[in-house]
């Protein structure tokens, strides 16, 4: 069964069901008919036996017994398949119809009212025995009534033969019907297969139409379409990412090439060469960091970022980072404040990096004299850390895209700030997602906040 096609399987099952039903019906019909015929035969035998008794009871003595015989013959002769033998108690045959056959000895002693049957060559017989008391006779006579039921047997033989023929024909017809039904029933499945086969990276936007699909297959089609949507999204993201990588690397590479060629085109003093090399080094370091970041993101995409699970007090992390950033904050006359505590399970290095990214981001956009505040709150089953800073409100169209790779809210900043490749928030997001958390940004009335929600350790 394992390698049979679904169509073949369904045809076979259909056929088996038809055979089973027909066989049960046939067997029942056969048994019922046999029973019915047996009842009819019994009834006939009982009736005739009663009549025979009646006739014989009228007789008085040997002589009158033989007088009654023609009457008896007439009674039995009316039924062409019926035969009778009447025996005296000592076994002598008193009367025997010419058609009477040799009855096996054992039936002479058979119980009254019970019907016996036996087979003799081609013939099948049923019979009944009765002891008839005749007046003036010391011993009762034994009457044997025999009914030839061979034609019944013939009828059943014919019936069975035709039943088998009918069964085979029905089986074949039902198999064929099953095949047709299965083929047409499975047509939507073949359609799904056809779409799936034709699918390639270029046609990921195709979907299997839902309307003509039967109810049972709708879930399959829905799942399949959902898978396609996910694939398409991932594919688009990947292509954009590749394009972005190419673009982002092209700018520093072209700087490097131009600068180097210009410097080499004339003889210069040693400081000019030094200057060129330093400048190249900065550019190269930037590229190197970008590659590191992109590799990190690529690993995150493939689920290869597996954070350790150590118990971390977020307030401690913030305090450590404030220690690091306070110099920078002082330079820009920005104050740092933290409130609240919250303990989470996570990777120390990665969470350091996340909060560091958010703080350096906030430092970049907070105007002089303002305060960056970090708030840690505990809710029912999560810890929320928010980094809020006053600054220009970010419009909602930018808010959604802030976490996209290489996205910068202000396009002009792109070339101006070489240290910020636009991957920081994407990395932050992938770390938070690896921690089964959530990150989002709000920006209302000159206050921008980045919020991280992490599950609370149970």
């Amino acid at each position, binding site marked *: 069964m394992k390698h049979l096609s679904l169509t073949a399987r369904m045809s076979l099952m259909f056929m088996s069901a038809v055979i089973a039903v027909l066989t049960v019906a046939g067997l029942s019909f056969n048994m019922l008919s046999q029973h019915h015929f047996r009842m009819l035969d019994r009834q006939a035998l009982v009736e005739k036996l009663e009549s025979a008794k009646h006739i014989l009871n009228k007789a008085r003595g040997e002589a009158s017994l033989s007088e009654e015989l023609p009457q008896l013959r007439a009674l039995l002769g009316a039924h062409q398949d019926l035969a009778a033998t009447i025996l005296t108690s000592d076994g002598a045959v008193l009367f025997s119809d010419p058609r009477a056959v040799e009855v096996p000895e054992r039936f002479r002693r058979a119980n009254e009212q019970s019907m016996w049957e036996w087979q003799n060559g081609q013939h099948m017989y049923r019979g009944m025995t009765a002891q008839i008391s005749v007046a003036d006779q010391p011993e009762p006579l034994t009457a044997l009534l025999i009914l030839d039921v061979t034609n019944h047997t013939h009828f059943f033989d014919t019936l069975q033969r035709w039943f088998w023929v009918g069964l085979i024909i029905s089986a074949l017809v039902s198999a064929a019907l099953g095949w047709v039904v299965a083929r047409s029933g499975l047509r939507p499945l073949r359609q799904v297969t056809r779409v799936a086969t034709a699918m390639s990276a270029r046609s990921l936007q195709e979907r299997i139409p839902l309307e003509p699909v039967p109810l049972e297959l709708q879930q399959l089609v829905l799942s399949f379409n959902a898978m396609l949507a996910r694939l398409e999204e991932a594919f688009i993201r990947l292509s954009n990412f590749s394009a972005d990588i190419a673009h982002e690397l092209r700018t520093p590479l072209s700087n490097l090439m131009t600068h180097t060629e210009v410097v080499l085109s004339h003889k210069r003093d040693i400081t000019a060469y030094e200057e060129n090399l330093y400048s190249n080094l900065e550019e190269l*370091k930037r590229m190197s*960091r970008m*590659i590191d970041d992109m590799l990190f993101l690529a690993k995150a995409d493939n689920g290869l970022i597996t954070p350790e699970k150590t118990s971390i007090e977020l307030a401690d992390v913030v305090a450590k980072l404030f*220690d690091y950033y306070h*110099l920078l904050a002082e330079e820009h006359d920005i104050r740092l404040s933290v409130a609240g505590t919250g303990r989470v399970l996570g990777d120390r290095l990665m969470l*350091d*990096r996340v909060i*560091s990214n958010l703080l350096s981001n906030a430092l970049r956009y907070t105007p002089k004299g303002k305060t960056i505040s970090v708030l840690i709150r505990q809710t029912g089953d999560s810890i929320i850390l928010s980094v809020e800073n006053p600054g220009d409100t970010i419009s909602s169209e930018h808010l959604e895209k802030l976490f996209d790779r290489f996205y910068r809210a202000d396009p002009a900043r792109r070339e101006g700030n070489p240290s910020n490749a636009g991957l920081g928030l994407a990395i932050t997001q992938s770390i938070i997602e690896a921690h089964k958390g959530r990150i989002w940004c709000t920006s209302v009335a000159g206050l921008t906040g980045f919020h991280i929600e992490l599950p609370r350790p149970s």
Partner: protein
Amino acid sequence: MKLLVAEDELKTGVYLQQGLTEAGFNVDRVMTGTDALQYALSEAYDLLILDVMMPGLDGWEVLRMVRAAGKDVPVLFLTARDGVEDRVKGLELGADDYLIKPFAFSELLARVRTLLRRGNTPPTQTTMKIADLEVDLMKRRSIRGGKRIDLTAKEFSLLELLLRRRGEVLPKSLIASQVWDMNFDSDTNVIEVAIRRLRAKIDDDFDLKLIHTARGMGYMMDAPE
């Protein structure tokens, strides 16, 4: 100090050799794992720098066989693959450190010096001196030209780090890691600010500057003897 560099990429190998030689080390360079093993077993090196991907034997194999031969020379791996399992494998086999390509040469140099210093730490000094700057590590006090200089805790840690590794260029990432426990690259200029502030206190009032900038690479503390 004698170093072995095993690197199958010719350019990388030559630059590493040049850089390390100019930093004052005696450097042998090989290009295959088989040569690396032969050299490592026949000569006494203070440090092996092994590329992981090499023709013949790979870096892991070389390390395994060197350790099997009973040599506990420090080993630094260079790898282009940044897989956690690679790191674990290397550290399990007994590597002492690893660097992921591309890396900054200043970073490599700093790590090499750390590894070479390991094991033969000088007796713990309580006072250090460079030119006319004296630092008392116990009392956390610094005096230059007879004048007491007030430093914050972090400024003092930074000064101590620069002093302990006098004459070495310390990359910003190493400073961030050692002084602030920031073990990842941050794209801000916190270290520059911190150095600028330390300079203001240590160097600005004096003609002889002790803190030097190695542009694009890091910072160094040194003074002519």
